[in-house]
């Protein structure tokens, strides 16, 4: 177990907070990936890794912010860029991926997939998205 030389003058409360957020973030990322391996269907599996992208990323970003802020005695907030970026982009990618999977399942006629929205739902443009 190597010591961390550059964190020599880190106070105990900051070390506790950093450790807490690190353990929380990494454990949630691991739990999300275990769920991703174990769940049976794709539409259930797509929910599991979002544990890692929401609080997994949030915890580790917060640990990094606390660590560098306390260590350099000035606010260091550039890690929040990663948090904002991941929070904004994950729903976009997962919606695209779920729609692609739904499209493929419907095209192959697999059972257990909701049917296409009826034609009258396409007339109201705002409703057509939610009706699927």
């Amino acid at each position, binding site marked *: *177990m*190597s*010591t*961390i030389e*550059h*964190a*020599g003058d*880190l*106070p*105990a409360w*900051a*070390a*506790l907070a*950093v*450790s*807490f957020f*690190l*353990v929380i*973030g*990494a*454990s949630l*990322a*691991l739990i*999300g*990936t*275990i769920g*991703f*391996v174990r769940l049976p269907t*794709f539409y259930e*599996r*797509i929910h599991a*890794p979002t544990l*890692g*992208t929401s609080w*997994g*990323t949030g915890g*580790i*970003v917060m*640990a*990094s912010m606390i*660590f*560098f802020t306390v*260590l350099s005695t000035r606010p260091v907030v*550039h*890690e929040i*860029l*990663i948090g904002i*970026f*991941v929070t904004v*982009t994950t729903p*976009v*990618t997962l919606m*695209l*991926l779920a*729609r*692609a*999977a739904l*499209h*493929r399942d419907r095209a192959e006629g697999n059972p257990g997939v909701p049917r296409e929205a009826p034609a009258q739902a396409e007339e109201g443009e705002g409703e057509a998205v939610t009706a699927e």
Partner: protein
Amino acid sequence: MSQTILSWSMTFAQICLVIAMALAALRMSRGPRAQDRVLALDTLYVNSMLLLMVFGIRTGKVIYFEASLVIGMLGFVATVALAKFLMRGEVIE
């Protein structure tokens, strides 16, 4: 004391994230359909981004933060392009 706590929690976080990356790689090699593999690639990207941030805390260098930012952006672009490919059969229409 605080050194010990910090060092152990960082090792724990690194081990957790490496196991998570291995599980995502397992799903990518085993996953029954193409969308499972794309989602596994996205999970692998996110976990490697988090692992690089833990490396950054461990070494105290800013270069790891920049690397994890680049990995996050590339992961977004790659997953969107692959999802579009699964949907349409081509990326640029």
